[in-house]
């Protein structure tokens, strides 16, 4: 976008506006980080910088299997569900982006409809089905529904990326004597990889944050995921909220996502918008 020439006064105005925006976005986040370093007594103290820094909240949550196990579950369930969803979504997106056949629109429409399907209406039957199949409170019990709800998101973003791939390169490689397998691995796969990574991050974020299925289909830390587990954190009595440990857990849970997104921010936005906007 063309740079607009600004006077110093305007510049100061924009600077102030920027500062206000950042403050609005960041105060709760900084507050969260600050709380995680405060001692239980200082949690009620409204200063942003802890008067006394402590790692006690972190050591408390990282010592107990009530948080570590759910964290491992979250990572495992998220990765497996993402892998399956991206695999199926890539095949579907390939067909959507590259092939023409009657009824394609209906098929995509149906999968998008699933994305809007109120998951809450499926919880009870899924609960009963999972109980009868022995899937309740197991990893597959969460992986199976996560793949189903991650797929529409995956198909949507991957179709956008795949439409941008210059597929004629594949043909050119074949003309130059490459086998179909070589054409795919040497030419198409490297072009498709960035889109698949971005999609994987989005699907992983969905699984990582999912809460409704996580509290409905688990009963112990054998398969409970991180978002469900922090809802079960309890203080020394029923009425004390363990603010420090919750804040520390929230920081630990959020860091991986922030790292992913800082690295892939531009691509993620491109993935979300290009599908809908490039005409």
């Amino acid at each position, binding site marked *: *976008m*063309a740079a607009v020439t*600004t006077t110093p006064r305007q*510049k100061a105005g*924009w600077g102030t506006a*920027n500062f206000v*925006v950042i403050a*609005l*976005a960041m*105060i*709760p*986040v900084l*507050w*969260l980080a600050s709380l995680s370093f405060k001692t239980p007594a200082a*949690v009620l103290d*409204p200063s942003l910088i802890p008067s006394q820094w402590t790692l006690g909240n972190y050591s408390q949550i990282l010592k107990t299997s009530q948080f570590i196990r759910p964290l491992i579950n979250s990572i495992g369930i998220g990765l497996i569900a993402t892998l399956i969803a991206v695999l*199926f979504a890539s*095949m579907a997106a390939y*067909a959507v982006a*590259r*092939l023409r*056949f009657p009824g*394609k*629109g209906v098929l*995509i*429409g149906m999968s998008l*409809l*699933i994305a*809007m*399907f*109120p998951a*809450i*209406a*499926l*919880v*009870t*039957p*899924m609960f009963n089905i999972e109980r009868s199949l022995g899937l309740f409170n197991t990893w597959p019990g969460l992986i199976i*529904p996560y*793949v*189903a709800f991650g*797929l*529409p998101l995956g198909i949507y973003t991957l179709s956008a990326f795949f439409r941008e791939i210059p597929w*004629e390169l594949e043909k050119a490689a074949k003309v130059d004597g490459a086998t179909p397998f070589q054409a795919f691995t040497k030419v198409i796969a490297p072009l498709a990889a960035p889109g698949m990574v971005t999609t994987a991050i989005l699907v992983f974020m969905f699984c990582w944050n999912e*809460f*409704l299925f996580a509290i409905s289909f688990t009963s112990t830390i054998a398969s409970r995921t*991180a*978002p469900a587990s922090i*809802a079960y954190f309890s203080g020394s009595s029923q009425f004390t909220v363990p603010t420090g440990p*919750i*804040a520390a857990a*929230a920081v630990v849970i*959020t860091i991986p996502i*922030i790292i992913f997104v800082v690295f892939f*921010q531009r691509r993620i936005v*491109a993935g*979300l*918008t290009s*599908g*809908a906007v490039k005409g």
Partner: protein
Amino acid sequence: MAVVEGVAAPAPKVRLRPRGVSRREQWQRRLPLLPALIYIIVVTQIPFVVTLWYSFQNYFFDIPGGAHFTGLSNYTTVFTNAAFRASLVRSVVMTASSVIVAMILGMAFALLLDRKFLGRGVVRTLIITPFLVMPAAAALVWAGPMLDPNFGLLNYLLTPFGVHHVAWLSTHALGSVIVVMIWQWTPFMTLIVLAGLQGQPADTLEAAKVDGAGALATFRELTLPHLRPYIELGILLGSIYLVNAFDAVRLMTNGGPGTATTNLPFYLYQQVNYAFDVGGAAAAGVVTVILTIIVATFALRMFARVFQFDEAAG
């Protein structure tokens, strides 16, 4: 689009006129779609059929002896139930107000960020953080350390303005939940709109400037129409997510006080988990699904336009 299709067309086996392909080939083309499609249908539609079945049953988790058929009585209850209607209205209010405010703020922030200044990349990354905080964690932090009547940060910050010990979650429950949703979704809207702003051709803007168009006129006549698909996309994606919002309600207010923040998903959850009324919840769920399909059909029209299905459907 034309370019992309033109690119796809010369590939082997893919002809421009599907009429020319054999039946067998048509099925082969659909083949890569099948795993995803079959998977989605099996995992979501079998439970839905079961929901449909439950909706005609008198089925309580806490009453032994099992379910029995009751015809349409669960549906009669749903349609005459004021609590269901109220939660439906609350869902609409929650979704619409948070999506619209988040979009307006998002546009403002995007315009702000769409200028060259030192540290723009850092600012953009900082602004997106609220969207990355796990919603369940964000809800807990807002409910406690941010909005608590005694030690909450908001009351502390508002003390100079004569605000003391306001129990936000009791007195302004719905507003508080909406504020948290806006806080989480504004960064997302900002990013989407910013992508649109940066895709705006510079020469058109330059031409408008040369022609003497003011900033406001340029925005209204050029920028806004250009941004429209981005705005629609942001509203659509935000609505899809927020209409099903459950974690914020469950963790911040548990639907209360009373039913002040009970939206449709939480109402359905409550019917099963607190009232044990599986049949009634199933009927309410079926009605919710039908309403969703109606709304989604409108949304899909938009998708159809941007994805250009008509061309693909050939």
